[in-house]
Structure formats: C-alpha cells, structure tokens
C-alpha cells in the first residue's frame, strides 16, 4: 500500500494541474500573507502593528462607538485614498473577496473629481497637488491623543546621492501639533461636507467603481471603526491576546489560513480530477479494474495521496515567514509556539480540502469526465462568505471556509470556538461520506454494474 501511495504521489507531482495549484498557492501567499508579515515586522513601532509594544503602556481604547474623531478620521482617510486612486486612476474593489483594481473611464473620472471637489473644496489642480504637501502622518486614537509620524530627514550627500530617512512615531496628547494637524490633517484640505453627505458621496463612488469597492460602507466600516482590521491602532486587549493567548504565531497562522482560503476552495478539485481522469485518458481502467486490490483501498490510497500532495506545500510555504517571526520574537525575548501553524492548517484548512476534493472525487468517478468542474466552480462562487466577513464572522456550522483576514480578533474567534469545531467536524464527516459514495460507485463500475466507457 505504501508503494501504491508513493506512486500515486508521483503521478500527481507530474501533473500540470498540481503545479498550477502550487503556483496559485505561492502567489496567494506572497501577495496576501508574506507582504503582511514583512509589513508588520517593518512597522513594529507603529501603533497599528500587532507587534507594537507601547513603552508607556498606553494603547488605543476598546470601543465600538462611532465617535466624532472616528467619523473625522474615516472621512479624511477615505478622501485621501480617493484622491490617490483618482490620480492613478486605479481603484480598489473586492469582486470575489480578493482585492482587484479598476480603471475608470474619462466620464467616471470626471464624476469622481466633482465628488472630490465637494468633499475638499479644492479644484482639480489642487487635488492633484494636495498630497505632495503632506510631510507628516498621524494615526488618530479614539481617546484624545494621537500617534504622530514626524517628518524624516532628507538631504544630499556630497557625492550627489539623495537620502531620505523615515521619521519616528511619537504619541501626542492634547498637543498644539495635534490640534493643528486635526484642523488640516491632509496638510492641504479640510472636509467640507457633513458625515451624512460623505456617506452619500461614498455610496455614489462605490456604484461607479463596482461591487465592494474600498469606498463601500462595508469596507469603510471594516477599516475605520475601532475593530480588528490592520489599519486601526492596537488596543490593550488585542495586545494581550497577541502576545499572551496567540503567542504571536497563532495570529499569523490564522492570517495564513485565510490568505489561501480561496485557493483551497477550488483548485484541489482540479488536481484530483486530473489524477482520476488519467485512467480514462490512457485507457488504464481496463487494466486496473480486474486487479485484486479492493475498490476501497484504491480510492482511499488515491485520496490520501492527493490530500498529502495538496497539504505539503501549504505546510512548507509559511516556513520562511515563520523563521522571520521567530527570529524577531527571539530578539525581543518572547518565546513563540512554532507548531501553531501546523495545528491551524490541519484544523482549519484540511477539512475544507477534504470536502472540496471528495465532491470532485465522487463526481469524477461517477461521470468519468470533467463534470467536477461544475461543483468546484459553484463551491468557489457560492461558498465564500460576504466581504464584510473577511475579518471573521462566518461562524455557521455549514460554512465551508472560515475567513479571518486580520492578525487581531483572537477573542472573537474564541467566542465561537465551539461552533467552529462543530463546523470543521461536520465538513470532515460530509467529506468522508462523499469518499464512501465514491467507493461504492467505483466498485460498481469495476464489477460491471455501471457500464464502462466503450
């Protein structure tokens, strides 16, 4: 059996679909996960970073209220982002749960410019130039103070080389610099509309860009309410959860699992379909069917081989970033749990992989053609949570994938742990049922109960 298993693994490793899967996985990890890890490790002094440790022990408040400050921050940040997007004519939106970019027509760009005029009171020329005046940035904290990023040093060496050193973050409370900054946070404009009008404008902008743009109320709420998204300053509770409960790696393991969730929701189905259809393509069925090995063993061995080959890169890909995280934590004297990734991958990802592949296994054995593409596509389209739940929240017993697109939110997830465990067990049991059905159909075919292809 071990030999058959290894030979099935060899067959999978030689298939194009498997390497396409690895390529897609690699791209998703680089784009969604590794960048975040690098960014977090680079901005450990930033109050929004999960690694941030406040020297004075002061963190952002835990609150769900939409304060004046939050509203103002939301309006300023969204307007700045709209300006940036307008200048580059490149707008972020989330049509399939992942971020994409869209270019608008001249007419639509003109409409955006009108909205920007209304929001800022600036004319077109000023809007294009407004961002260039900004020397400092700040992150507003809903407690009175703010972290201010002081301007960095700029200059030219004697040899003509230009240098630009980043400024440092400084916590400022009721300081004149802060009030000045709040009056004109962008360094070049002031919001000219009420919060209600701002929401109306954002709604119109969202319609122009498309489904779930960055300017939709769903996304603005996600990013600017005091919540678990990355751009909000870390609260004391989040800080404790990250270092004490998650022991650092837990948060990254969740984020990693989330970043590959849309890949594993679909592509493993193609890998197993490809493996099974090789028998038909190379007319191997008539050589395999009369063999003495039982149908259950053949199907289970093949299924195990695909599961192992699918899981292998998922286990290998986070190693590089894990080493970087462990190294950083070692330097600041924090011990982390290096096995958390494996635990999360097996508990979170494996059940989904099992179900996606078992459905493809059953359909492919039944039909002996590419029909499994259909359920795989339908699963990919309809079994994903809505974009407002990408930071977590799809905690139903039958949710096929769990989203948690944030390094924070340990507590929220733990509150739903029981239902999540039930969910993973249910998904795994349904997967095993499909494997059982596949064995029954395969056995019937081997015995001539279901007619072979000509």
């Amino acid at each position, binding site marked *: *059996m071990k*030999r*058959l298993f290894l*030979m099935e693994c*060899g*067959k999978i490793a*030689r298939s194009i679909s498997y390497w396409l899967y690895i390529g897609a996985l690699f791209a998703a990890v680089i784009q969604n996960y590794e960048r975040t890890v690098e960014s977090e490790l680079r901005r450990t002094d930033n109050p929004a970073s999960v690694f941030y440790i406040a020297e004075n022990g002061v963190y952002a408040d835990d609150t769900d209220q939409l304060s004046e400050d939050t509203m103002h921050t939301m309006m300023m940040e969204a307007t700045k982002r709209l300006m940036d997007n307008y200048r580059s004519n490149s707008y972020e939106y989330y049509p399939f749960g992942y971020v994409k970019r869209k270019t608008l027509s001249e007419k639509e760009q003109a409409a955006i410019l009108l909205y920007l005029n209304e929001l800022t009171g600036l004319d077109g020329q000023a809007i294009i130039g407004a961002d260039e005046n900004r020397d400092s940035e700040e992150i507003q904290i809903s407690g009175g103070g703010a972290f201010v990023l002081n301007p960095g040093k700029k200059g030219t060496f004697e040899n003509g080389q230009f240098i630009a050193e980043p400024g440092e973050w400084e916590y400022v409370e009721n300081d004149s610099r802060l009030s000045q900054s709040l009056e004109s946070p962008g360094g070049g404009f002031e919001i000219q509309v009420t919060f209600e009008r701002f929401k109306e404008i954002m709604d119109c902008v969202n319609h122009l860009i498309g489904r779930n743009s960055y300017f939709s109320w769903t996304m603005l709420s996600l990013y600017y309410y005091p919540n678990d998204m990355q751009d909000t300053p870390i609260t004391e509770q989040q800080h404790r959860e990250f270092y004490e409960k998650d022991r650092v790696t837990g948060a990254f393991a969740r984020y990693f699992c989330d970043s590959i969730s849309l890949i594993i929701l679909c592509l493993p189905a193609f890998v197993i379909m490809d493996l099974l259809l*090789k028998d038909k393509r*190379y*007319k*191997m069925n*008539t*050589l*395999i*069917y*009369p*063999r*003495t*090995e039982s149908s259950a063993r*053949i199907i289970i061995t093949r299924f195990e081989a695909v599961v192992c080959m699918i899981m292998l890169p998922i286990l290998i890909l986070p190693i590089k970033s894990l080493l970087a995280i462990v190294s950083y934590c070692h330097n600041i004297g924090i011990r982390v749990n290096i096995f958390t990734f494996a635990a999360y991958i097996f508990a979170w990802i494996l059940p989904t992989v099992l179900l996606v592949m078992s459905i493809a296994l059953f359909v492919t054995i039944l039909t002996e053609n590419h029909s499994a593409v259909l359920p795989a596509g339908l699963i990919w389209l309809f079994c994903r949570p809505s974009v407002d739940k990408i930071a977590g929240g799809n905690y139903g017993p039958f949710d096929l994938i769990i989203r948690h697109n944030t390094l924070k939110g340990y507590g929220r997830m733990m509150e739903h742990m029981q239902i999540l465990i039930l969910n993973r067990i249910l998904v795994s049991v349904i997967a095993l049922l499909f494997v059982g059905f596949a064995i029954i159909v395969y056995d019937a075919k*081997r*015995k*001539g*109960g279901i*007619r*072979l292809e000509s």
Partner: protein
Amino acid sequence: MRIEITALKKCYGDNAVLNDISLTIGNGMYGLLGRNGAGKTTFMRILSTLLKPSEGKITFDGIPLEDTKRIRPLIGYLPQEFSLYPDMSVRETMRYLAAMSKIPVEIQRERIPKLLQQVNLWESRKRKVRKLSGGMKRRLGIAQALLNNPEILIVDEPTAHLDPEERLRFYNLLDEFSSDRIVIVSSHIVADLEAACANVAVLDAGRLLYAGTMDKLAETARGKVYELRIPKNELAAVKRDYYILSSQGHLSDTKIRILADHVPAAGCPALCVPTVEDGYMELLRLLEKGEKI
C-alpha cells in the same frame, strides 16, 4: 482449471450482444474467432469480471463469476485497447500494476525482472512508456497481465497493429505460457489463431456458431473447397455463383479457390483439402444462406 459457460446472455437495452452461449474451456490456448462486432470483446470483458452477464452462469473450477474476490486473483487480462501512463517507465508501470494486484514487494522484486526478460523488455525497463513501439507496448501488456501469475490469461485481439514478425513473436510468447493454464485469445484473423490454438469458438452477431477443435472446424468445409483456373473474363460470373475464398491473377487466367456445394462446371475444378479458414468461411456462408449450422 476449467471454465464452464452456460446459456450466457448479455443485453444492452433490447440489443442482445451475446445470446445463449454455452462453452467449456480447458487448459491450453483457446481461440475466439469472429468478425468485428461479433461480441468477442464483450465475452472477454465478462470473463474478466468487467461486465456482468444479463443471464446465464459462468464458473471457474466451480467458483461463480460473481465471486470477484476469488476470481480476480485467477485472471490476467490484456484488453484490446490500452495505452498505459506515458510518463511512467516500463518498470514503474509493472510495479504500479503489481501493487494494484496486492503482490508483496519481495515477490515483485523477483517476478518483474523475470517477466520483463521473458517479454524481451528488460533492456528497456527504464524507458518511458511513451517511447515504446506498438509491439513493445503489447509485450508490456502481456507482462502486466502475467504479474499475478494467473491461471487464466485473457487476451483480446493482441496482434492488432503489429507487424508480422511481432505477431509471430507474440504468439510464441503466449504459447510458452499456455502449457499449464488457460489462455483465451480473440482475433478476427484466422491465420493468427490457426497456428496457436488447438480449440476455437466462432462467434457471429452474439451467437456461438462453432466450438471445438481447429481440425474439426476445417472439416466443416470438407468436399466443398475447389480450386479452378478460369479466363479473366469469366471471373465475374464465377463470383456471382460461388463463394470466393481467394483469387490470384496469372496472365490471362485467374486461379481461384471457391466454396461450393456441388462440383463447379467451369475451369477444371480440383477438390482441395480444407484449411481452418475455409471451415470458418463455410460457417459464415451457411449463416448467410440461412442454413442450420
């Protein structure tokens, strides 16, 4: 080993592909002869446990066909059409199918080299299947069918697409294996089976026309095979009146071999000793005439 087939019938919907086949097959090479579409492949698939019969009974030394757990270890099957995984080497293919046959690794290590040597593929054991010629693939096919050292070897149209030399070599190979086991070979080419098989069954349109020895099959045409030499311009008339077995042009004359119930009037006929092919053709002729066989 003895295969008993009683009143075998296989239908696809209303279409009977095999009808009322009763046969007994013992050790040695057994030929299955019939035109394309006669039902040979269906018959072989049923014997290989790949198809269920609609009616009838088949036993292998008393073991019913339905008991696949006991039957499958007895069977080696080489289908008419197969192509194998192209990326696997010859040896890998053998190992893969041996694992599918639950052959322990120690036995595989001993048996696979031996079989590959027997089929003259040992030197090519590392070669990928995609690089094998048609003949080599067939030989690999027979080697894989013998992996479990079967008591019954079922080979469906093994020499299709093979050149004459490969065909000869292939039948010699089958002959080696048939000394102490049943080898059932199907073909629509009489000459292939004539040299190799002592017994033969003739199928046509799902019906069993004949089952017995090759000699007796030839005997069915005794007294009906004539050789005549006729002028070329009479050939059309002879073709109309008789069943032509062969014709050979010689300048202005044509030498023909015919099947006839009576002595032909033309061309100084000479009665010939019938061959197996003559016997087979006589069966088909009688069938076409609607006479009872």
